[in-house]
């Protein structure tokens, strides 16, 4: 469907396509410029396929100088620009514009340097997340953030979205695992941010660049932090006959002073889908399971195992099963890792939400989601990073049934509002993109949104980088009708929002 680009966020220009193509051809090879419908088709959406726009022009530059020239041209003419990596994003952050240039970064796919002594790798933005870990595995090192799309997603996109993964609670998000960025501003200026030391002078611009969804600059090089491979890991599955008890158990594990490497939860709908899909050995009658992975030195793992096992039972688990060897461990994880495609098999379409909430609210929020699911008549499967309170409710719907997607969107919107109300956020790791841009108006005050706009302007004076994503115009918010939220209290919280 057509994405909700607000008229106030649309950048108009009068440049004719052939004119720009002629200028691009002066420095880009012919096959690096795409402008015909069939060539543009693969770029019309990212992994949030519900929203599609045919791009105006796509370029695939191979040098930094070429990107700089594209940016300077567009900056001079006032043409909007969107950068794209592998297109695996889940919030429409790389959705193209019908009057803008899409810069594909796929040709920047080289690992430039590995510095084992300083525990870092310097890579181009088009290198995939997993490729880094694979490259340094023989040195006993790895790159920690592991979004589920790690086989395909690129590091440039990871930085732009501040990607997370299963092991964030212990090993951090992208923002904790990068050291230095080279970016190009919209004006084409190359800026080096951060250093290969532990800190550098001046503002921590790495912080605002990470997760800025392509709105502040184009990432052309990333220095990532490497960590020593963890020598030992063990996973166990705790089975619950009640979702709320499982939710409370999550808070109980953390309260006991444990930081599991992963603490994942699945509800019955997700368990059944996963079990049917890949036979991971999950109990299909369980109302919820928790997968708890502990890692460290062999000594630490043994010690923690002795603590966690009885703890989970005392927190209400009916049974706790420990994966006794690597094969069993892989099998236990397989169901969780395949949960999204598994749900994709039981429903024609699903809509994945990404709110994060305080852990102690897990039980109550899961109950509310069940209520909303009933209200809208759409099933919701819950499979998520429980340890850090990052929910991924999957709303099941059928895009071919008229009105079903609207219903799914409204249900999703209610879940986002609920996340804000309990002191959480609308997005933990997938980003705002086009998908949750309206909800930014609920989560942030007018003054805070204004501050975001001022930051944006500091990097991109004309507002040409990825407009209509991440940061709503104030006009959009005025129309959305929820300008100020105080202490998480929604004004008119009973009103239907869309």
């Amino acid at each position, binding site marked *: 469907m057509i994405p909700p680009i607000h008229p106030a966020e649309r950048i108009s220009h009068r440049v004719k396509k052939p004119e720009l193509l002629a200028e691009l051809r002066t420095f880009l090879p012919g096959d690096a410029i795409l402008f015909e419908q069939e060539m543009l088709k693969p770029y019309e959406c990212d992994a949030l396929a519900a929203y599609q726009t045919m791009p105006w022009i796509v370029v695939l530059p191979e040098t930094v100088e070429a990107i700089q020239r594209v940016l300077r041209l567009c900056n001079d003419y006032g043409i909007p620009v969107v950068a794209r990596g592998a297109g695996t994003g889940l919030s429409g952050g790389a959705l193209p514009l019908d009057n803008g240039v899409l810069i594909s970064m796929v040709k920047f796919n080289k690992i430039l340097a590995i510095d084992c002594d*300083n525990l870092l790798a310097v890579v181009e933005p088009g290198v995939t997340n997993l490729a880094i870990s694979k490259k340094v595995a023989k040195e006993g090192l790895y790159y920690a953030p592991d979004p589920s799309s790690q086989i395909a997603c690129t590091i440039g996109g990871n930085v732009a979205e501040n990607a997370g993964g299963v092991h964030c609670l212990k090993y951090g998000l992208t923002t904790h695992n990068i050291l230095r960025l080279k970016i190009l*501003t919209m004006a084409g200026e190359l800026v080096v941010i951060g250093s290969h030391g532990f800190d550098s002078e001046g*503002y*921590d611009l790495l912080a605002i660049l990470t997760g800025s969804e392509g709105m502040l600059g184009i990432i052309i090089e990333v220095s990532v932090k490497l960590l020593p491979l963890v020598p030992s890991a063990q996973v166990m599955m705790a089975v619950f006959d009640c979702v709320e008890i499982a939710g409370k158990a999550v808070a109980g594990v*953390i309260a006991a002073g444990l930081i599991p490497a992963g603490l994942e939860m699945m509800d019955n709908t997700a368990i059944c889908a996963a079990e049917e899909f890949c036979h991971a050995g999950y109990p299909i009658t369980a109302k919820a399971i928790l997968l708890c992975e502990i890692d460290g030195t062999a000594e*630490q793992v043994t010690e923690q195992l002795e603590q966690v096992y009885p703890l989970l039972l005392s927190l209400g688990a009916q049974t706790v099963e420990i994966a006794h060897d690597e094969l069993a461990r892989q099998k236990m994880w397989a169901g969780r890792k395949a949960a999204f495609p598994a749900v994709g098999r039981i429903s024609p379409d699903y809509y994945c939400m990404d709110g994060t909430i305080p852990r102690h609210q897990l039980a109550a929020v899961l109950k509310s989601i069940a209520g909303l699911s009933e209200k809208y008549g759409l099933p919701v499967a819950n499979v998520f990073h429980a340890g850090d309170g990052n929910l991924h409710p999957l709303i099941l719907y059928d895009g071919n049934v008229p009105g079903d997607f609207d219903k799914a969107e409204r249900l999703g919107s209610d879940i986002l509002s609920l996340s804000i109300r309990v002191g959480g956020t609308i997005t933990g790791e997938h980003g705002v993109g086009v998908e949750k841009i309206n909800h930014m108006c609920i989560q942030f005050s007018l003054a805070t949104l204004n*501050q975001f706009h001022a930051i944006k302007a500091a990097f991109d004076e004309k507002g040409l980088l990825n407009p209509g994503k991440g940061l709503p115009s104030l006009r959009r918010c005025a129309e959305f009708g929820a300008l100020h939220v105080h202490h998480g209290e929604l004004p008119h919280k009973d009103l239907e929002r869309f």
Partner: protein
Amino acid sequence: MCTSELVSQFQEEILNAQLEKSRLQIVGGDTKAFLKPNVPASLTRLEIGGYQGIVDYQPSELVLTARAGTSLTIINETLAEQGQMLAFEPPAFGRSATLGGIVASGLSGPRRPFAGAVRDFVLGCKIINGQGEVLTFGGQVMKNVAGYDVSRLMAGSEGTLGVILEVSLKVLPAPKKELTLNIAMPIESALVQMVALRRHYLSISAVAYENGFLRVRYSGSKTGILSVLDTSVITDVDVESSQNYWHALKEQQVDFFHTKGDLWRISVPPATPVLSVPGHWFYDWAGGLRWLKTAAPVAAVFGAATAHGGTARLFRSSQQAPWPRQEVALPLARLNKRVKAAFDPSELFV
């Protein structure tokens, strides 16, 4: 005065400064003014020390939210009661240190290479910007990618972007017991051994080198650590149980810091070899943070740091202000300036 009245008062002071075109120096516990030697002492002070109190702390959430004027001592004690800690081990530099100052100064202690810096633990904050507006960023949850991550930007911003009112920090369980290995070896070997220690998964939480001794703080077993080290360079090993050393190190109370001369803080990639500037050196952060007492010319220190992709900063000195600052590449300097203007267009906060 109640807390909301205090906020209104801060806002008023900011708006007054705007009208009078004066500049403001934000002060919490007044323990870290020495970090900004180039700020004239005569500026109007915006005192935020009275804005204190822990707003929310639930150990199972691993999050503590407190007002900026809250004393670091109180925060540390509150966390210790629950077996938790601020894992970045911030230096206080005085009894009256406040949370706001800790975040604004962005300084972290010996655990930093293994646990992360202040900015890594900031989850959310409330600030007043240069327009006198109260703004809220981030939140109290571990993962949050809605809006630019301004909370982390505040760490190390030294009060130049706005008044920090309230901060939410991620906290961690404190290790039950930590010990320190003192291993005698020359510095050239120590730098190599520090790399080896970081390249292996060990329960290490600090590595420093001074005066012929490599010090390694660890919890659990020392066997794994010793097996990683090259025994041929070790002349002596002993284990000490006291944590006093690391506390004294982060507070700059070990003997090294008491000697005379300018103190430089040099941040370099940790495996950087010995820098050829004469003087006394102290190595923290497994080689990534180097303290130098020297009489060498300023240009020599900046030059040595820059040559290895690092930065140097004169930290304590009896020199007259203004102190020299390392040059920042022009595109970055321009960007820093524009970011500053985005928060504080009238340049009130210095």
